[in-house]
C-alpha cells in the first residue's frame, strides 16, 4: 500500500462544485413536456375521496371523486388555463390538501428546505469530523483498534477474530 492520500483542497472544492451543480440541475428541472401536461398535472394532485392516492393513480373501484376531478382538469387544460391557474382552482375548491406536494411559498417552503439544510449540515459535520479524527491520528503509529495497553486481552482476541472473519480489506 502506498502513501496515504493527502487532503487536496482544490480537488474537494471542485468536487463540491460539481455535486452542487448536479443537485441544482436535478431540482431546477421538472417534467414540463407539453404533451404530458395532463399526466403531469394529475400527478400533482390528490384524489379527494380520502383514499390518500395521487389523482392520476387513483383507480379504486367506485371512487366517487377521481373521475370528476379528472374531468375538471381536462376542462381547465382545454380552456387554455396555465398550470398555476388550474392548481389554484383546485385549491380554492378542495383546499390545500388537494396538492400532492407542498407549495414553494410561505411555511410550505420549510418542507423543501429542511431536508437539504439538514443534509448539508450533516455533510459538513461529517467532513469536519473525519478531518478532526484524521488530524488526531497524525503522529500516531498506525494502529489497529483498541490497541491501548490496558485493553482486555479477551477483547483484543475478539477484535482480531473479527478482523480475520471480515477480511482486512472487506467488510
Amino acid at each position, binding site marked *: 500500500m502506498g502513501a496515504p492520500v493527502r487532503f487536496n483542497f482544490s480537488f474537494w472544492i471542485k468536487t463540491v462544485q460539481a455535486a452542487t451543480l448536479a443537485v441544482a440541475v436535478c431540482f431546477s428541472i421538472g417534467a414540463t413536456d407539453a404533451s404530458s401536461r395532463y399526466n403531469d398535472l394529475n400527478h400533482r394532485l390528490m384524489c379527494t375521496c380520502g383514499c390518500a392516492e395521487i389523482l392520476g*393513480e387513483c383507480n379504486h373501484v367506485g371512487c366517487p371523486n377521481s373521475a370528476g376531478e379528472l374531468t375538471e382538469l381536462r376542462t381547465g387544460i382545454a380552456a387554455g388555463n396555465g398550470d398555476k391557474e388550474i392548481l389554484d382552482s383546485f385549491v380554492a375548491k378542495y383546499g390545500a390538501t388537494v396538492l*400532492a406536494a407542498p407549495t414553494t411559498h410561505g411555511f410550505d417552503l420549510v418542507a423543501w428546505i429542511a431536508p437539504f439544510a*439538514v*443534509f448539508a449540515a450533516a455533510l459538513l459535520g461529517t467532513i469536519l469530523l473525519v478531518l478532526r479524527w484524521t488530524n488526531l491520528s497524525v503522529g500516531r503509529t498506525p494502529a489497529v483498534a483498541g490497541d491501548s495497553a490496558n485493553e482486555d486481552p479477551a477483547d483484543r482476541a475478539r477484535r482480531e477474530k473479527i478482523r480475520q472473519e471480515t477480511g482486512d480489506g472487506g467488510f
Partner: protein
Amino acid sequence: MAAFGSFALIIALALAAYNLLAGALALRLIATGQPAAISPERLADTARRAGIAGFVAVTAAAFALIWSVFTNDFSIAYIAEHSNRALPGAYKFSALWSGQEGSLLLWAWLLATYGFVLRLTHRTDVKLYAYAGTILAGIQLFFLAVLNFAAPPFSLLQGAIPDDGNGLNPLLQYPEMVIHPPMLYLGYVGFSVPFCFALGALMMRYPGEKWIKVTRVWTMVTWLFLTAGIFLGMHWAYAVLGWGGYWGWDPVENASFMPWLTGTAFLHSVMMQEKKGMMKSWNVWLIFSTFLLTLLGTLLTRAGLVSSVHAFAQSSIGTWFVVFMGIVLAVCIFTYILQRSHLKSEHHLESLVSRESSFLFNNLVLLTACFVILWGTLFPILSEYVVGNKVTVGAPWYNRVAIPIGMFLLFLTGVGPLLPWRATSLKSIRRNFVLPVIALWAMVIVGLAVGIRPWKDGVFDTGNFYALVAFAISAGVMTAILSEFLRGAGVISRQTGRNLVAATWLLTRRNTRRYGGYIIHIGVVVIVIGLAGSAFNRNVESELGLHDKITIGPYTLEQVGATQDSNLNYNSEYAVLDVYKGGKKQFQMTPEKREYLASGQPQTMVAIHSVPEWDLYVVYEGTNPDTGQPIIKAFLNPLVGWIWAGLVVLVFGTLVALVPSVSPATASLRVPATRTIPTEPALKGGV
C-alpha cells in the same frame, strides 16, 4: 374460549410484571452487593422463568383467538368484525392481524417468542441476558397492558350474536397478506432484542464489544425479516391495489422504512466499533432510535395521526404509545447520561479516504434519508400546528427529495467496499476504480444510445435523467463488487487449481460475512435497476367491446369475452383478453373484479404477465354503466421483476452472512499433488 383468552392475557400481564420487578430487584441487589433474604441469582432466575411462562400464556391467548376465528365464535366482537363463515382457512389466520386488537396480540406473541428464545439461551452470558430479559419484560408489560385495558381482543359483542361476521377486509384477502404482516412484525418486534441488549449492556457497563457479537445474529435476522416484510408489502400493493405502482410513500410504508434505514446504518457502523472501537455512543443511539422508530411506526399506523391507505387499522390507542415512547426515551437518555463515560471511544482515522470514512458517509446518508422521510411524514401535522393549514406531502415531494439521496447511497454502496480499512493510496484507488468508472461511463453511452436521454424535445426529462444516473451507477457498483469477487477467487484459483466458480464458492465460505455483504449489495443494485425502470412506465385505458383491441408496447390486447363466477365468499367478473405480440397470440389474461358478499366491498384482482424486460399489468376497472362494456387499464412496467429478484439475492446474501465462515484449515482443498499449499492463503485485503 373468550374467557380462556382473557384469562391467559391477565396471567401473561402478571408474569411480565413479576419478570420486570423481580428481575430489576435481583439486578439491583447484584450490582450493589446488598444482603438479601433471597439469593439475587435465584430471584433473577425466577424472573427468567416467569418470562418463559409468560410466553406460554400469550401463546395460549393467541391460540384462543385463532380457535375462535376457526370456530366462528361471533360472540367475540373482534371475530364478528373481521371474519365470516365463508372465509377461506388461510385468511382466517390473517384475521389475527387484520384489526387493532388482533395485531397487538400478534405483536405481544412475537415479543414473547423472542423473549422465550432469549431466556432459553441465557447461559451465553447470564448477567447480560438477565438485563436484556428484564428490559424486554418492560416492553412486554406495556403491550400486555394495552391488550388487557385498551384494546382487548376478547371483548364480547353487546346484544344478539349475529349468524355471520362482517368478513375480512377484501384488501387483505390475498395470499401475500398471510405472510406480509407477520414478516413485518417479526422485523418490528425483533428490534426490541438488540435494543434490550444495548440498553442492558449500557446499564451494567458491560465491558468491550461482546454485546454486539451477541446481538449480531438477532439484528441481522430482524433486519432480514423487516426487509422481506417491506418488499412483500410492496408486492402486495402492486398486485392488489391496481394502480400500477408498488410504493406510494404512504405514512405507514414510511413508518416501516425508517427503522429499516437506521437498522441498516447500525449494521454498517457497528463494524467500526467491532474493528476500531469507534462510534460506541453513536451505535447505542442508532439502536435506540431504531426501536423508537418501530414504536413510532405503530403509533402512526394505529393512532390515525396522518391519513393513510392503511386506515383499516386505526384506533385511539395513540396516547398509550406516546406515553410509552416518552418513557423509553427518558430511560435511554437517563441511562446514557449516567453511563456515557463507559462509551468513551478512541476516535482516530489514518486517512481521509478509507473504509472508516466511507462508513461515516454511509451513516450520514442513511440517517438523512430517515430524517427526510420522517419530516415528510410529519410535516402535515407540523403545518397544521404552525399555520393551521394541513397540507399533503405525497410522492412528488419524496421523489424530488429522496431520490438524489438514494443515488448518493447507491454510489457509496459501490465505493465503500473498494476502500481498504485504515488508509488507501492513489495507486490502489486507480487499480480499484478504473474498471467501475469505465463500466459507469459505458452504461451512460449505451443508455444514451438506446434512447434513455435526459432531454426530450429540448426539455429536460427528470425521470429519464434519474434512470440514466441509476443505471450508470448500478453498472459501476456491480462491476466493483464482481471484480472484488473475481480478485479473491483468482487468488484461490491460482493456489488450488480450482475453477473460478468453485474458487468463488470457497472464497465466500471462508469469509461469509464479507462476501455475504457483497451479495447483499448486488441485491440492492438489482433492486435499484428495477426501481429505475419506473421512469419508463406506460399505461393505456380504454373501454373494450367484444373483439376491440388496445395496444401497449409490443402487446395488443383483444377482448374475447367476459365471464362471471361466484362462491360463498365473493362474486366475480372477469374480462378475458387474448394477448398478441408480433401478430401471434401469446397468452390469455383474465383481470378480475370481485364483490365480497359479507362486506359488500368491491376489489380488483390484477392480471400480471411478468418477463425480465417488463410486466404487462392489466386491471379490469368495471363496466361503463351506459354501455355495459368493460373498462380495461393496461400498464407496461419495465424491469419490475428485477425488484423481486433483487430481494431474493438480498435474502440469500443475508443468509450467507449469517453462516459462520470456515477457516482455511477446515475448508476442503483439493489440490494437485505437485502443488504446495500455503498455510494461510493471502486473501486479505482485496485491494
